[in-house]
């Protein structure tokens, strides 16, 4: 051992601060495809951001910054957006990137077979002005459009046509499912689905490389204990996520750094707003008390979120007041307070609503979707019992959970929401707070059927308002509405816990995307 320590000390002393290195990392989920338009999920989009580029991208602090587009500006009074493309960018196979590839990527990503086509629902037309200028026309002014396409990645028309992959095919796969030809900082060297994926730096990348990696290998490790052991033994340099219960122990190890942050995902309780009767528990078949706002408020007051965070989360998560976290745009500062924990207040509200003796109902909960999901539901069950509400908890795997929610089989349910696309408050307003409307693609995750006329009316203005102050005023107004009506009970914001060897420097972004280009191996 002394010999080894000496060798390490020596190498640190003689080498320059940045030396080239191989890098191994492990995550829980293997990206299921290499096709950037086939699956809209965080593991896929996060991984592919290393090999593909978009027109714009997110910086370390989640600000929109230029990528393949050097600049962009609104057209006229908000008819759309004009993007000026970067010149001299090449794909990994050497082909030149130009406006035609943008048009092709638009056709491909907005096709019916694409999983990301909802990003383009406001787009009415895409015009190629010249080789390095593209115009996107929208059906209404759309201030958030550039931010909402940060994960829309550019593909080469020639390559896709030559390999018969002009449309994504998620059901049976095609050439783009296993191969990559992007403009990104890394090239795909080897891909074995579910086993390992190897990337090497793209020497002709258009941007300056900040990293010092010569080769990076990703291995999915599903078992958290195995992943932690792999990090401890030095078989991998970086692991995400680190189980909360192991974080403290890893922090005590001098060879390991634990990086903690706050994710963009808010965990909340939802109610069956529309149902006339309760479906589960002791009071099944009786009128639904959750139609009364006082009962919903009583639930919010009866849950001691601080206790949940202290015991189950060991202090690493933050309480939530609304459907988005303070880190995201559109967060309503004036509505940042959440209902205080108040058992007496909750009992008084229940008595006022005519439920002094309480009632019994069913809470649906996933047990493998969010970290600690079932434990949180058990805590809520115990807390509600203190104000006389008897909860029948039904926890199940997530693949059974969504079908149950879609079939309205719940009185109350647990939901987590991370705004994809625009990373703005408008996202949960559209998906969770708006009245469900299949045709307008609104409220598709509003399982309880919450509905407020003023909120529905204000939503289109929020989406199209160009003036940031007026827009925020509208958001503040509707946030006040859904808080007063207790449409949901926001509980907490999920933490991000990553573990690295102590010689690794990297950046943790709140959307849980891991960017290889920000990694330094010392």
């Amino acid at each position, binding site marked *: 051992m002394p010999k080894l320590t000496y060798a390490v000390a020596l190498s640190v002393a003689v080498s320059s601060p940045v030396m080239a290195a191989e890098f191994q990392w492990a995550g829980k989920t293997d990206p*299921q*495809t290499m096709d950037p338009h*086939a*699956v*809209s*999920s965080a593991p896929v989009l996060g991984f592919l951001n290393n090999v593909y580029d978009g027109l714009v991208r997110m910086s370390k602090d989640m600000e929109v910054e230029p990528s393949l587009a050097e600049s962009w500006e609104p057209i006229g009074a908000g008819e759309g957006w004009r993007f000026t493309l970067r010149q001299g960018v090449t794909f990994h196979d050497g082909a030149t990137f130009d406006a035609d590839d943008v048009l092709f990527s638009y056709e491909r990503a907005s096709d019916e077979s694409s*999983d*990301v086509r*909802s*990003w383009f629902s406001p787009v009415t037309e895409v015009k190629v002005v010249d080789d390095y200028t593209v115009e996107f026309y929208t059906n209404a002014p759309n201030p958030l459009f550039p931010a909402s396409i940060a994960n829309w990645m550019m593909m080469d028309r020639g390559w896709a046509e030559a390999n018969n992959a002009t449309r994504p*095919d*998620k*059901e*049976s*796969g095609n050439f783009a*499912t*296993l191969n990559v030809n992007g403009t990104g900082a890394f090239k795909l060297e080897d891909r*074995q*689905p*579910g*086993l*390992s994926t190897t990337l090497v730096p793209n020497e002709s990348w258009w941007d300056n490389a900040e990293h010092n990696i010569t080769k990076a290998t990703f*291995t*999915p*490790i*599903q*078992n958290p*204990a*195995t992943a932690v*052991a*792999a990090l*401890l*033994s*030095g*078989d991998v340099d970086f692991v995400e996520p680190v189980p909360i219960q192991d974080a403290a122990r890893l922090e005590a190890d001098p060879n390991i750094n634990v990086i903690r942050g706050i994710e963009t995902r808010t965990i909340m309780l939802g109610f069956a707003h529309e149902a006339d009767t309760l479906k589960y528990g002791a009071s099944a078949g009786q009128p639904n008390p959750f139609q009364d706002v006082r009962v919903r408020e009583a639930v919010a007051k009866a849950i001691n979120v601080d206790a949940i965070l202290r015991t189950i989360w060991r202090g690493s998560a933050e309480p939530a007041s609304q459907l988005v976290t303070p880190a995201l745009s559109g967060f309503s500062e004036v509505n940042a307070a959440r209902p205080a924990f108040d058992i007496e207040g909750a009992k008084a509200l229940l008595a006022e609503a005519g439920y002094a003796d309480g009632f019994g109902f069913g809470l649906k909960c996933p047990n*493998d979707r969010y970290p600690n999901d079932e434990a949180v539901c058990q805590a809520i069950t115990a807390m509600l019992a203190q104000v006389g509400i008897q909860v029948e908890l039904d926890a199940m*795997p*997530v*693949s*059974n*959970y*969504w*079908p149950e929610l*879609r079939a309205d089989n719940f009185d109350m349910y647990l939901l987590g929401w*991370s705004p*994809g*696309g625009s990373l703005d408050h408008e996202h949960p307003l559209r*998906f969770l707070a708006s009245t469900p409307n*299949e045709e307008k*693609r609104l409220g*598709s*995750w509003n399982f309880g059927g919450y509905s407020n006329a003023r909120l529905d009316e204000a939503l289109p203005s929020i989406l199209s308002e160009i003036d940031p102050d007026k827009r925020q005023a509208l958001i503040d107004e509707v946030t006040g509405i859904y808080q007063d009506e207790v449409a949901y009970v926001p509980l907490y914001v999920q933490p991000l816990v990553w573990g690295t060897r102590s010689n690794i420097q990297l950046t943790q972004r709140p959307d849980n995307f891991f960017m290889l280009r920000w990694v330094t191996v010392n």
Partner: protein
Amino acid sequence: MLAFIIRRIGQSILVLLIVGLVAFSMFRFVGDPIDNMLGQERTIEDVERLRTQLGLDQPFPVQYYRFLEGAAQGNFGVSYRQGRPVSEILLERAPATLELAAVSGMLAIVFGIALGVFTAIRRNGATANIIMATSLIGVSLPTFLIGILLIYLFSVELGWLPSFGRGETVQIGESWTTGFLTISGLKALILPSITLGLYQMTLIMRLVRSEMLEVLRQDYIRFARARGLTDRVVNFRHALKNTMVPVVTVIGLQLGAIIAFAIITETVFQWPGVGLLFINAIQFVDIPVMAAYLMLISVMFVGINLIVDILYVFIDPRLRVDRTGAH
């Protein structure tokens, strides 16, 4: 004789069909794959469209029939998760599982028989008693716990062996990858094969020991000793040989169990075999992969039993008597 074999094969096919039917009736309870395949921004319309496209809106006997129709033509469908043909994925993953199972089986047989004989001959010795006591660990501790303990001892604390994966592999021919030809591949095999083989090893050891003790009490052993034969000849030529008959039967049946039990070991060690593939398929509700894996495992078990049954007929003349004459 021929009629017997044909009848046996017919029964085996019937068993396979029933296994498949039960499997397909269970898939509904595993959950709905649609939500895993579509992103957050899907609409209810998208969900219904994909469900129809995959045939998941059909009742399970129809889904099963379609699976059989494809399987009869060698087509097991396309994985929902990976978007590639299931048969291709299974072929890619099979070498890892088969190599692990072969090494574990070898370890279990060699050490199981050696230790079994040792503890039978020296049944009152201190070493034998220690071996018997520690062998209880192998039978009573769950596999995943043994795996985790081994990882913490040999990878985390001592740093001798890799904590996960298969190491470097070498491609042989079209579809076989082997870890036997590289140092890292061999090192990676050690912990998982001990984890997987430990239970079988203790089982074989205890079986050999009790059979051997039984045989050693027989008259012919006493006569052999009276003739003045050496201990070595008595123990190995006469006693062990007669012990092996039931042991071989059990080993044959355990072979399938090793491959099937590999699921847990593969999960703990992130071993890239078919067991890990199956676990991932369950989490994702990847029905084509689950169906093909279950059919593959049942074909294997049914096949082993069929061969054993047929072998019995050759070994044991009493079974060869025609059924009509047996009344």
